[in-house]
């Protein structure tokens, strides 16, 4: 068995490094180890060694038969949030040094002056103005002052810049000045990594382009060190296959691409969760819209699959909207809110129960961890309700203190004037509400109705409340994949190579420039061909090229991305169909359409995906014996039933085809699934769980 060809994916997170190994028969091995921030490869090797041990073979043997290794990491995202990226200089057009300082303005909270105005990604003291100006039509309004630029670069060097980002006004219309600065940087500061805005992300709107460029440059030193280290480490251990890396475009690219443009690695791991969900939902429930929830200890990520396609956004903020930093890229839309097992419950001065945003984090953690935490958290509430087995938390690795959780909840219950169980239930309901709000924002934005969608849940805390969330959303079906605990790494197993290219060309529906658009799309096609040609031989399967255009009604400024049929807009009839699909999309998302209104088309995109050979989804579960006798009882509280004795099943003991009626608990090594009253759980042929709401 061990002679077969393997595919390995890893996801190096802030705490854990996850590894998934699959073989040609679809057998999947999952392993985890602690991440070693100083040398990422050490943590990765530990996880790989565990997987190899489980497969009863040496690491060198496993890596030797691995044809494809897919890598994703949250290092880039974490470095940005923790402010540990390189000291980066920012070069801008003279007169506009405060682009990064002021962002686009805005705030989510009027009257809240308890926090300072957010810091810019690059401070003013590392910002350098360059005398030059390109106008909106791409004309040189003011020539580039090269001598002045050289002096500014010398100043940047004196101040210890480790990377340089360049964003000049209208570089998208005419990149001559950015290119000239690039050449000057290479001459004056040889070896220093730099990023030019028109290459990183050629969009109009100077702040978002500048922000993405500054982030990209600031990550280069870090990623140019880490990624080759990982590659070298794997090769040393005997790996000879192809190495790909996840990007935020919802696919994978050759690792060299991320070294050149590390901005794409920001939030790349979470972008694979909808890929995993789509894979599972397609085989388990067929097509349809899918809402994807990934619940970790401190954050809740939600994403969407609409009519089989991942949903993209240009509004990816690192941190809170308006106060964080915008990547500006068109990438998979994953909304993240700070909510999880550690969120603290409290009663405000008006007597209202609140949950979060403050978190007990890992230290001291929830009260039940017994590490000194005394304030009640979501995990404490779930424990008090009997939804967590204190002896089997994290596969039994951590014993939980029920008494401490009870004490923490008792204080809250007293302040609210209700019983402890009711208070615990209220804590979960309010924690759920924040997640429901995040889901609503995303689905309404895309015109998706949750009642017609399937919910796919992953992450350690997924199973605790997902059915309750589904019920509030009106969803009747929930899928919890076998690999729920490692959703992103599992998504990597089923990713294609995806790369997106953009080219600006402005035209409109009333005077459509057929020739110009044809030329623009031909240019995109050429770039896609060049990308495909550089892929390692034998990697790719079927190549799919899709084209999109960013369109809006005349004088609007926010675009909708509309897919083109085929590979162009060849004639009047094709144009009419494109116009009609824009009106439809506008009505779906914004409730109104304006027939006859002029439509402006500005940005053309080509997305090439090269299919990779994927492991089959194996029917492994069918081989297991039915462990019906292995259940034991436990007391849990549900408001409509009060305290009741419920069945507890160990997930591994359930055979395919089994159905469990709620209330019950299903205990998996990485998560516990609460089957609420009125719900039933089914074990599918592929070993995934399907929760269904029975008809009332």
């Amino acid at each position, binding site marked *: 068995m061990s002679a077969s060809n393997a595919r390995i994916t890893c996801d190096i997170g802030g705490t854990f490094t996850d590894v998934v190994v699959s073989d040609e028969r679809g057998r999947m091995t999952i392993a985890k180890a602690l991440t070693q921030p100083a040398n990422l490869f050490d943590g990765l090797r530990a996880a790989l060694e565990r997987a190899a041990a489980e497969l009863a073979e040496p690491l060198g043997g496993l890596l030797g038969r691995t044809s494809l290794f897919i890598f994703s990491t949250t290092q880039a995202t974490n470095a940005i949030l923790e402010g540990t990226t390189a000291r980066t200089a920012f070069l801008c057009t003279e007169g506009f040094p405060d682009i990064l300082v002021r962002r686009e303005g805005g705030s989510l909270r009027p009257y809240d002056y308890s926090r300072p105005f957010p810091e810019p990604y690059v401070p003013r003291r590392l910002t350098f103005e360059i005398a030059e100006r390109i106008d909106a039509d791409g004309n040189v309004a003011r020539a580039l002052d090269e001598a002045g630029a050289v002096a500014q670069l010398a100043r940047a060097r004196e101040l210890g810049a480790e990377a340089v980002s360049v964003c000049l006004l209208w570089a998208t219309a005419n990149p001559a000045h950015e290119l000239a600065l690039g050449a000057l940087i290479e001459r004056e500061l040889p070896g220093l990594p730099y990023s030019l805005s028109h290459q990183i992300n050629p969009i109009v709107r100077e702040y978002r382009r500048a922000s993405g460029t500054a982030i990209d440059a600031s990550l280069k030193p870090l990623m140019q060190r880490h990624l080759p280290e990982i590659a070298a480490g794997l090769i040393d251990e005997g790996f000879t296959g192809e190495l790909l890396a996840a990007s935020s475009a919802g696919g994978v690219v050759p690792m060299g691409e991320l070294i050149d443009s590390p901005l794409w690695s920001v939030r790349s791991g979470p972008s694979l969760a909808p890929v995993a969900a789509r894979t599972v939902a397609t085989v388990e429930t067929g097509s349809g819209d899918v809402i994807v929830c990934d619940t970790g200890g401190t954050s809740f990520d939600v994403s969407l699959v609409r009519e089989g396609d991942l949903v993209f956004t240009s509004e990816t903020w690192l941190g809170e909207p308006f106060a964080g930093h915008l990547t500006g890229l068109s990438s998979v839309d994953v909304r993240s809110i700070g909510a999880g097992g550690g969120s603290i419950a409290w009663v405000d001065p008006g007597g209202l129960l609140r949950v979060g945003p403050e978190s007990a984090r890992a230290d001291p953690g929830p009260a039940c961890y017994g590490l000194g935490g005394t304030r009640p958290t979501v995990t404490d509430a779930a424990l008090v309700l009997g939804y967590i087995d204190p002896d089997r938390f994290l596969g039994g690795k951590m014993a939980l203190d029920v008494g401490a959780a009870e004490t923490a909840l008792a204080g809250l219950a007293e302040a609210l004037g209700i019983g402890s169980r009711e208070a615990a239930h209220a804590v979960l309901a309010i924690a759920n509400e924040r997640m429901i709000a995040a889901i609503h924002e995303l689905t309404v934005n895309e015109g998706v109705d949750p009642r017609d969608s399937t919910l796919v849940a992953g992450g350690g805390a997924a199973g605790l409340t997902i059915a309750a969330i589904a019920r509030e959303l009106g969803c009747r079906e929930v899928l919890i994949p076998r690999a729920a605990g490692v959703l992103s790494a599992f998504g990597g197993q089923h990713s294609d190579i995806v790369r997106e290219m953009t080219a600006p060309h402005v035209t409109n529906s009333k005077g459509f420039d057929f020739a110009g658009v044809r030329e623009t799309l031909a240019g995109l096609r050429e770039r896609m061909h060049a990308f495909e040609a550089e892929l390692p031989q034998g990697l790719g399967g079927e190549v799919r090229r899709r084209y999109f255009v960013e369109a809006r009604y005349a004088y609007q400024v926010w675009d909708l991305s509309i897919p083109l049929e085929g590979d162009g807009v060849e004639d009047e009839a094709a144009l009419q169909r494109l116009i009609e699909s824009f009106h439809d999309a506008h009505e779906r998302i914004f*409730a109104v359409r304006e027939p006859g209104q002029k439509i402006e088309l500005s940005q053309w995109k080509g997305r090439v995906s090269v299919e990779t050979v994927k492991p089959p989804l194996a029917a492994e579960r069918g081989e297991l014996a039915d462990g019906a006798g292995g259940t034991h009882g436990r007391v849990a509280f549900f408001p409509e039933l009060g305290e009741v004795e419920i069945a507890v099943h160990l997930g591994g003991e359930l055979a395919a085809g089994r159905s469990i009626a709620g209330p019950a608990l299903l205990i998996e090594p990485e998560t516990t699934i609460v089957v609420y009253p009125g719900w039933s759980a089914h074990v599918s042929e592929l070993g995934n769980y399907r929760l269904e709401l029975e008809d009332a």
Partner: protein
Amino acid sequence: MSTPPIAEQPTRGERFDPVALAVITSRIQGIVRRMSNTLFRTARSSVLNTARDFSCCVVTRDHELLAAAESLPIHVMSGPDLVSASLARLHPKLRAGDAYLHNSPYHGNSHAGDHCILVPIVGADGEHHFTAVVKAHMADIGNSQPTTLWASARDVYHEGAVIFPGVKVQQDYEDIPDIIEMCRTRIRVPEVWYADYIGMVGAARIGERELHGLGEELGWETLHEYTAAWFDYSEEMMAGAIRRMPAGRSVAHNKHDPLPAAGAEDGVPVKVIVTVDPGGARVAVDLRENPDCLPCGINLTEATSRTAAMIGVFNSLPIAVPQNAGSFRRLDIEIRENCVAGIPVHPASCSTATTGIADRVANATQRAIAELADGFGMAETGTLTASVADISGKDPRHGDAPFVNLMILGLTCGAGHSRGDGWLVSGEVGDGGLMMRDSTEVDELLYPIIVWADRIVADSGGPGRFRGAPACYVEYGPAGAEIEAMWSTDGYVHAALGARGGYPGAPARQFLRRADGNVEPLPGWGEQTLAPGETVLATSAAGAGYGPPWERELQRVVRDVADGWVSPEQAEQVYGVVVRDGELDAKASERRRAELAGTSVPVPELLDVEQRSREIADRLAPYVLAAEPAR
């Protein structure tokens, strides 16, 4: 949870279920946010689709403000309540499918430049339960001049606004064509107005659809019980906040800049009397001792008089309190008829009722509270300048198609306050920091203009223990065609005032740069035809400081110097912080601070913003003037 869905949740006697209270609040806030998002993404004018100068909210059947997530404060605190009440008087029977257009300053609206769309939410029972209100600052409203903010309009006739006191504009979900035609024949660039109108209707209809769904799911009576409980909760939060405030009566004065109108030639004095009663948990703001309505466009409306005072109070609350009719019960705003900061009498013009005097009232209110005790209130925020201007003309790139828009550049003026420095990106005190800036590139794409600079001006932020936000310098001009620019600003003569020993912010300055390089001063209000090659140089009015500057944390000053926001000279003279070659000289600083604590520095010396602006202008002169001939 596995609880029955919230619809079936029982209320516990008189007390509304606390979980349902939190859940329904989250749902309704979500609905309002979705209304906002719809208008933001579909609108045509950059004042809406970029600067976000609009608001969305839900009002109860009793005309009380229920929820207004992420909406501009000056639009919503009072106004939606008044227009809803006025609508009920004029249209006793509201039906599903109706929509109403409202902009009347005499019937509860903020000012004529804000169009409101009101959609009654009518249940399957045929009863009116709530009203969805969308209010947006339009690019044009058909005034006699192409501006929506016109301080020198003598009265509503001179202003020329078409006034809609709640006119039915849709029935059975269809436009009423004669009203739409009325607008299209009067409002400039009618296609853009109509598209913005459609965006507003779309936002209101999304609110209607979702609230209707919620009402039918939960039962309308449950929603009304919720409303009462949410108001009680909010009132309790407000009472708790006021109990932590210092008791006392405090009077603050400031002055609006002079205007060419009888009675305003020397400026318009504003007086605010604030009484905080922590025992009774109430705050009173008395605006009655202000001048009668003036023959110009700066008179406030009832909505903005009340709201301006409320903003000053909310800015000064020690904890976050929800903004709705419940918390407002703890406020007593006293105003009178025929008063520049009160209730206007027709035909007084209220063209600039959301800025100007409104900013002065809000600023005086928060400064009055600051003077009660250290650790409370705020200094004064700066004001709008010519970097926020109505621009209009014909665009040669689009076959001379006409355009008109409120351009929003610059936008830095937050006030130092008891807990920190001025919020940097803010247009005026009434925007609560929610306003957004235009993108230079988007403005240049949409309109035939070129922007040469938009940058912070050193030494302009009012010095204080907590510094006011610095001013910004914006330079712009036409590209390839003549444009008309109009602005009505304040803060040119009378700067934002500091609190508790903080210094004022730098006043606004405006200049015109001729094509031959000559730079001439421009007045604080006015209109200007700009030929290609000419530019407007606008420096905004900066925010003021809170507390004595020599009490400012040393490292904050060192960082301001490193970032170029404060010069080493100002750092030493005013803050008493000696920075040499980027390094703090602690001993010298200690000496200088001791000296300053005894004798304070005269104001003009430290805020020579005119000089600073001219320095920037001079530095940019070769840059701007050497430009290739514009398109």
